[in-house]
């Protein structure tokens, strides 16, 4: 189980910001999210969206251990 966090406009679009999803890798997580909400999955792969695994930015694929936190970060607006 991974804990998925959405920020900014991604949370607005999804209608949720914090959810647990059964997935052993980022690719599996994207597939699971796409099955539930294809538009959201497309937005999560959109330009400028970064992914953090346990609060560290990752590019590409990553395995997900149980309890891993995965955050999808839309372009940051600054303070």
């Amino acid at each position: 189980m991974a804990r998925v966090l959405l920020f900014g406009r991604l949370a607005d679009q999804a209608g949720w910001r914090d959810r647990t999803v059964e997935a052993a890798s980022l690719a599996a997580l994207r597939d699971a999210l796409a099955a539930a909400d294809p538009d959201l999955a497309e937005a999560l792969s959109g330009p400028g969206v970064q992914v953090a695994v346990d609060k560290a930015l990752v590019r590409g694929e990553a395995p997900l251990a149980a309890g891993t936190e995965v955050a999808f970060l839309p372009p940051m607006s600054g303070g």
Partner: protein
Amino acid sequence: MTTFPSISLTAHAFEPGTLLTTFCAGRDETGAVASFVGLARAERGRATTLELEAYPGFTDAAIAEFAEEAKARFALQDYRIVHRVGRVAPGEAIVFVATAAAHRRAAFEACDFLMDYLKSRAPFWKKEHGPDGDRWIEPTARDRTDAERWD
């Protein structure tokens, strides 16, 4: 979780004068303290509230990494950054930055440098609530060019 005592993200209104007084206390060898306070603008009635979202543990770590770089680059003795999260009303302070150095140039420049970073690259997501609805805000071209002055 690591904490960053020089950096605070707070959901509560803060009083900039009190922060500055505390920051200036007990400094026999500092010489120069520069500070900046950013206030929420009403945008001529377009914005009734500003909402700032942060990712606790990620946003503060990113700011700390950048601030430590500023500390080394400008030979700062110390710095203090306080940033609001959640809903901020027009006129309220959003951000407070103070820098301490032996001489004023370093203190001024480091404060300017930190603000350019905070305004353009820090991991916040900002939404403007107004009479015409809500909108997410991205950094302006001006914010980006201000930040690029230091590259």
